C-alpha cells in the first residue's frame, strides 16, 4: 500500500468549504433568485490574507451565511484547522433566527478543540477548532469571523474558491491579499468574470477579487472533468518565502527545487556499517539496474511506512540515520534513505515530488507552487529511468501505475527542480488476457478452467490481495469478484511476476452450476462467460461539460465450450465489430459441431472529448451490453 504525506489540503479547506463541487461555474443571476435550488446562501464572505513577512501570514475570514434547510446545516459548523506552525488568533460566532433575533453567541467554552491526525499518520500536529452555530428552525443566519496566523508560508498562501459546492449560492464574496511593498504576489485566476483590482498604499500593495450573485452550481455531470478545474478560483503563491528559517523562492520550479535541497541538505548520511553492507550487497551485481534492484529489495525488507510529522517535519524528511536505526519512515524519509543507500553503491538518484493518487488533477506547470502530496525516487539509467515507490514493501521496482504514473512530477536535482513526466501506461500495457475451457455436462453444468493474465493497472487490485490477504480471504475475494450466477471455486492460484510492468497470473478451476440453460429441448449458451459489460451512465439533457474517459485497457477473452452430445445448432449470433473514439470492440462466435469458440476483444482509450460526444459514449456502452448478452441456441437432435 502506498501512503501520502503532505496535508496541504487541510489548508485549502480553510479558504472555503471544499466539498463535492459542481461541474460548471454557476451563472450570475439577479439577487432574488439566490434562494432557488439552494440549501445555503452566502450573504457575504470576506477573506483577508495579509502577508506580514516572507515567513508569516495572517488570514481572516468574516462571513454571514443563511442556512435555508437542514441539508445546509454543515455550513453552520465551523472547522478551523491549525498545527504547530499555525496559531488560531480568535474565533467569533453568532446565530440569528429567521426574524433576525440573536439566538446565541459563542463563548470560549463553546469552541471544541479536537485532534485531526490523519489516518495515514501515527502522529502529527494537526488539530481543529470546532464551533457549532446550528439552530433547529429554518431559515436562520450565522455570522462568524476567525483569524489565524501561520508561519508555514510554503502552503500558507490561500486558494480562494468562493463557491465550492452545489446547492450553495453567493450574494457577495471578496478575497483580498495585502503584501508589504517590495514583496511580490503570484496568482492564478480561473473562470472569473472580473479580474483582480490592484491598489497601493505607501506601505502595501492590495489585491482584491470579488464575485456577486452566483446562482447554485449545476450538478456535476457523469464522465465530466474534475470539478476543481471548472470552479471560479484564485490560487496564490509567494515569490520569496520562508518556513522555520528555511528561506526560498517559488517563482520557478528550479528555485522551488533549490529550497527542497536546502531542507534535505545533510540528511542523507548513512552509518558506515550500512554503507559497507550496501557495497557488499551489490558486489556481484552485473549492471546498475541489478544494483538498484538489490538495494530496493533491501529497503523493502528493512523498512515500513510510519508517518510522524510535526512542524517542519511535514515537509522535511527524517534523517537517513534515523530511518536506518528505527526501520521506519514516511515517504520523504524513506525516499531520502533510499537515495542515500543508492549513493553508497555509486548510483545517483533524485528525490521527486508528485501528486499521487488515481485520476488526480494535473499539475499546473506554469504556476510553480506546492502542489504535491507524495515523494518518490527517480533513478536515471543508461537505458531507461527507474521509478521507485519507497513506502511499499511489495511494489515491483520501476512500476508507477495508476498511483504515480502518467503525470508530471518535480525532480529535485542539484541544479534545482525540473518538471518531468512519469511513465504512461497505454491500453495494451493494462491487459487482461483470459482463456477459458468449459466442459459442459448434459444438465448444463460446466467445469471451467480459467487462466487470466493481468498486467499494468489491471494487476493492481489483485496484487494487493496477493500480498495482504490470507488464502482464505483470497478465496472470499475471488467469490466476490467473479460475476457468475452460481459457482464453486475448486482450486485457484495467484502468481505475481515483479517487473517494470508487473504481471499476475490467476488460475481458476470452477464448477459453474447451470453454466448454460437447458429447458425442454433447447440449450441456451451466452458465450461471454466472465467479462460482460454492465455499466452505462445516465443520459443528460443538454450536456455542458466535456466528456472525460479515464478507461485505458485491453481485454482479450477466448472461451472454448465443449457441449454434451445430442445437440444441433439452432441460432448463432453475428460477428460484431464496432469502433468509436472511446474504444474498439470485436466479438466472434465460431460453432464447430459441439464445440463453440468465442473470442472477444475490447480496447478502451483514455481521452477528453467535446460535450456533444456524450450520447455517443452512452451508445457505445449500450452496444457493449447488447453485444455481450448475445446467445447461441442449440436444439436436441431428433433421434
Amino acid at each position, binding site marked *: 500500500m502506498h501512503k501520502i504525506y503532505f496535508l496541504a489540503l487541510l489548508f485549502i479547506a480553510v479558504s472555503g468549504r471544499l466539498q463535492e463541487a459542481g461541474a460548471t461555474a454557476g451563472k450570475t443571476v439577479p439577487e432574488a433568485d439566490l434562494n432557488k435550488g439552494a440549501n445555503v446562501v452566502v450573504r457575504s464572505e470576506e477573506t483577508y490574507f495579509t502577508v506580514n513577512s516572507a515567513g508569516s501570514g495572517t488570514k481572516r475570514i468574516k462571513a454571514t451565511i443563511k442556512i435555508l434547510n437542514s441539508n445546509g446545516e454543515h455550513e453552520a459548523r465551523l472547522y478551523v484547522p491549525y498545527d504547530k506552525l499555525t496559531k488560531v488568533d480568535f474565533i467569533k460566532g453568532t446565530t440569528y433566527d429567521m426574524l433576525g433575533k440573536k439566538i446565541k453567541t459563542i463563548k470560549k467554552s463553546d469552541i471544541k478543540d479536537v485532534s485531526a491526525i490523519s489516518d495515514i499518520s501515527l502522529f502529527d500536529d494537526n488539530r481543529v477548532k470546532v464551533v457549532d452555530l446550528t439552530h433547529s428552525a429554518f431559515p436562520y443566519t450565522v455570522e462568524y469571523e476567525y483569524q489565524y496566523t501561520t508561519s508555514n508560508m510554503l502552503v500558507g498562501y490561500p486558494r480562494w474558491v468562493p463557491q465550492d459546492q452545489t446547492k450553495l449560492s453567493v450574494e457577495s464574496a471578496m478575497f483580498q491579499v495585502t503584501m508589504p511593498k517590495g514583496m511580490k504576489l503570484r496568482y492564478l485566476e480561473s473562470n472569473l468574470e472580473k479580474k483582480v483590482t490592484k491598489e497601493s498604499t505607501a506601505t502595501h500593495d492590495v489585491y482584491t477579487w470579488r464575485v456577486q450573485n452566483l446562482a447554485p452550481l449545476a450538478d456535476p455531470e457523469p464522465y465530466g472533468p474534475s470539478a476543481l478545474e471548472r470552479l471560479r478560483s484564485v490560487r496564490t503563491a509567494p515569490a520569496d518565502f520562508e518556513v522555520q528559517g528555511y528561506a526560498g523562492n517559488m517563482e520557478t520550479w528550479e528555485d522551488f527545487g533549490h529550497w527542497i535541497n536546502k531542507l534535505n541538505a545533510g540528511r542523507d548520511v548513512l552509518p558506515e556499517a550500512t554503507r559497507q553492507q550496501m557495497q557488499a550487497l551489490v558486489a556481484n551485481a552485473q549492471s546498475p539496474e541489478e544494483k538498484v534492484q538489490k538495494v530496493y529489495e533491501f529497503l523493502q525488507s528493512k523498512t515500513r511506512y510510519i508517518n510522524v510529522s510535526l512542524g517542519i517535519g511535514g515537509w522535511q524528511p527524517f534523517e537517513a540515520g534515523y530511518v536506518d536505526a528505527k526501520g521506519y519512515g514516511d515517504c520523504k524519509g524513506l525516499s531520502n534513505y533510499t537515495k542515500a543507500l543508492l549513493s553508497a553503491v555509486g548510483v545517483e538518484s533524485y528525490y521527486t515530488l508528485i501528486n499521487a493518487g488515481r485520476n488526480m488533477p494535473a499539475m499546473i506547470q506554469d504556476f510553480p507552487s506546492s502542489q504535491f502530496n507524495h515523494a518518490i525516487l527517480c533513478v536515471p539509467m543508461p537505458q531507461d529511468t527507474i521509478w521507485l515507490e519507497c513506502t511499499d514493501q511489495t511494489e515491483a521496482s520501476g512500476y508507477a501505475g495508476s498511483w504515480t504514473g502518467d503525470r508530471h512530477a518535480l525532480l529535485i536535482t542539484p541544479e534545482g527542480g525540473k518538471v518531468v513526466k512519469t511513465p504512461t501506461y497505454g491500453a495494451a500495457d493494462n491487459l487482461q488476457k483470459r482463456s477459458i475451457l468449459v466442459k459442459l455436462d448434459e444438465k448444463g453444468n460446466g467445469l471451467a478452467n480459467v487462466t487470466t493474465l493481468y498486467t499494468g493497472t489491471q494487476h493492481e487490485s489483485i496484487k494487493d490481495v496477493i500480498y495482504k490477504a490470507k488464502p482464505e480471504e483470497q478465496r472470499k475475494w475471488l467469490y466476490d469478484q467473479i460475476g457468475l450466477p452460481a459457482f464453486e471455486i475448486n482450486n485457484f492460484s495467484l502468481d505475481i511476476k515483479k517487473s517494470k510492468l508487473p504481471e499476475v497470473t490467476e488460475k481458476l478451476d470452477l464448477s459453474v452450476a*447451470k453454466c448454460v440453460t437447458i429447458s425442454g429441448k433447447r440449450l441456451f449458451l451466452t458465450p461471454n462467460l466472465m467479462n460482460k459489460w454492465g455499466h452505462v451512465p445516465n443520459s443528460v439533457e443538454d450536456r455542458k461539460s466535456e466528456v472525460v474517459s479515464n478507461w485505458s485497457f485491453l481485454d482479450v477473452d477466448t472461451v472454448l465450450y465443449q457441449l454434451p452430445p445430442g445437440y444441433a445448432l439452432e441460432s448463432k449470433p453475428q460477428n460484431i465489430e464496432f469502433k468509436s473514439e472511446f474504444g474498439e470492440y470485436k466479438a466472434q462466435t465460431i460453432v464447430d459441431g459441439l464445440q463453440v469458440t468465442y473470442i472477444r476483444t475490447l480496447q478502451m482509450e483514455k481521452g477528453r472529448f467535446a460535450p456533444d460526444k456524450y450520447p455517443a459514449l452512452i451508445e457505445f456502452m449500450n452496444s457493449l451490453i447488447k453485444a455481450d448478452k448475445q446467445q447461441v441456441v442449440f436444439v436436441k437432435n431428433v433421434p
Partner: protein
Amino acid sequence: MRTHMFTKLYSVFFLCIFYGLPVAVAQEEAAKFGKVSEAELRMKSYEKDTSAAAVVLSDFGYSYFTTNGTLKLMFERHTRIKILKKSGYDWANVELPYYRRNADKEVITSIKGFTYNLENGKITKDKLESKAVFDEKINENLSQKKFTLPNVKEGSVIEFSYTVTSDFIYTLNSWEFQTTIPTMWSEYRARIPEYFDYKFLQNGYHNFYTTKKDAAASANAELRNEAYVWAMKDVPALQEEKYITTLKDYQARLDFELQLLKVPGEFPKVMTGNWDEVIKKLMEEERFGTQLKRSGFFKNEIAAIKAKHTSPQAQVEAIYELVKSAVKWNGKQSIYTTSTTRKAFDNRTGNSADVNMLLTAMLLEADIDASPVLLSTRRNGRVTKGSPLITQFNYVIAYVKVDEKEYLLDATDPMLPAGMLPYRCLNGDGYLINRTSHRWVPLKPTGNYTTFCMGELAIDAKGEIKGKISESNTGYSALSLRESIKEEGKEKFAEKRNKEIGDMKYGEPTITNLEELDKALNLVYEITGSGNGQANDLLYLNPMLNKGEKENPFKLAERMYPVDFGYPYDETFMCKIAIPEGYEVDETPKSIAVSLPNNGGKFTYIVERRDAEIQVMSKINISKPLYFAEEYPYLKEFYNQIVAKHAEQIVLKKKYE
C-alpha cells in the same frame, strides 16, 4: 479443521453468566516481560492458522485496587506479538486510549516496549524510546498514547507493557480474548476487594481454558480481595461476514458489571442489582423517568387531538404523526434525553430518547397505556437478558396497548408507519418499563420486505418488446424505497430511472402513495426492448425482464455465524406476455417449487399458457429473519435454484400452416 470447529461453535448462541467458578489448573502461563525465547523468534508460521499475518503469543492483563489515601483501580497489561508477514506490521502500531470526566481521570504510565529480532543467530533487542511515545488529545474527555515499535520485520517479536491508574473505581473494563489475528494465550486476572460485587458476563463462542477464584492474600490488611483468573488458549482470529449484526457479538470477551457495593460500616449499595431497583432508579433519573411527567408544554396539542379523534387508535396515530413532524431525530442514539423533552420540542430536534420519551409522555397524557422500551440496536450488539445491565442499551422506543392490541412505536423516522420498527431496532428483545412493571418484549419485524411486480408486455416478430411494469412495495421494501426517494428528491429519482441499459429502455416511473405510509408505494413505468430489426422464425425471451436474481448472494462454501437478515422477504414477480400474431409457443420453462427445511422459505415458479398469452409467476419467500449456520448450505442451494430458474427463457416460433 479450524473451520469445522467454528461452524459447530458458531452455530448456536452461547452466552453464559456465572458467579462461582470451577477450579482448574493452568498448564500454560503468560509470558514474562523481556524473556523472549529463541523458539518464538524462529517461529515461521502459526501452525493452527498457517496464513496468519501476526499472532498474539501472549496477552496478559491484571486489575487490582490500591488504597493510598484514595481508592484507585490499577490495570497492568503485557502483550507479546509475533509478526509473521509484512501485512502484520500494523500490529506494531499501538494506541492506548484514556479518559477523563470532570475531576476523575485515567493515567497511563510505565510504557515499555521492545522489538526482538534474530540476526545471524543472535537475538537483538530494540527499545521503544520514551520520546517516541506520543500523546494525542482527541477531545476534552478522550486522549490516547500512541507509539510504534522500532525495527519491525518479518519474524520480529514485539512486546509492550503499561499501567493504567484509574479514578473510575466502579468501571472494570472488558477483557477481549479475541481479536482479528489469532491469539495463543490470553489471560486476565483481577483482584477485587470484597466490597465490590461484580457480575461476569462471557461473550462469544470460545471456552475458557482456565478459570480460578481464590481468596487472595492481600498486602493491605484493610482490603480483603478475591483473586480471579480467566484464560483462553488458541483463540482463532475474528472474521467479518455479511448479514451479521455486529462483529462484537461474536467476539470472545469478558464484560463486568458492578452489582453491589458493600463498604464496611455502610449499608450495601445496589449498583445495578435487580431489575426492580434498576428500574426504580431509572424512573427517578432526571434525563429519563422525570421526562415522562413533563407534559405542560404540549397539553394544548394533546387536547386538540383528543377533541378531533375519538378512538384511542386514531389518537395514537395522530400523536405519532405529531411527534414525527415536530421533532427531527439528530441521528444520535441514547436512552437518556439530551436535556429535557421540552427543549427538544422547542428546538424541533433531538436524539432517540428525546423523540420517543416525548412520544411516550404525550401518549400518557392522552390516557393511553404507554411505556418506554429500552433496546440495543443491531450495531450496538446483542443484549444479555440475565441481569439488569442498563449500559447495554443505547436506544429507547415506545410501547402502546390499545384495545388489547400491542404496538411498538419509533418516531425517529418520518417514513415509518405506526407500529413498524426500523431495521436498526430489530435486535432480539427490548426491555419494557413503567412504574408498576417491567418485562422483556420481542422486537419483531411487523412487516416483511415485500415487493410485488407485475409486467404486461407484447413482443413482435422482430423481437421488439413493449409493455408496462407496475411495482408495488410494502413493509421494509417501501420504507427503504421511500427513504431513497426522499434523499434524492422525487423528480431526480424518477429522472434517474429513465434509462437505457443495453437493449432495454425504461421509462420515467409514475410514483404514487409516497406520503401515504399505510399504503403500498407504487411505481409504474413503460419498458421497451429493441429487437434485431428483422422478422425472426424463432423468438427468445427471458420473462423476468432483468428483474430476476442474477447472482447468488451466498457464494462462500461455508458460514461461521448465523445469517441475520433482520426481516423476512417476500418477492413476487408476475408477467403476462402477449404472443404475436402468426407465432406459437414452442417451449417454456418448467414450473417448479423449492422449499427450505422447517418452513424456512419457498420459491415457486409457475408458467401458464392461455390462448394468445403466457403468464409467468415467480415468488420468493424467506420466512425467517435468522438462519443458523447449519442451515446455510440449504439457503445457498435455494438461491442456486432461483438463479438457474430465472435464467430460463421462453421460445416462440413462427407458425407454418
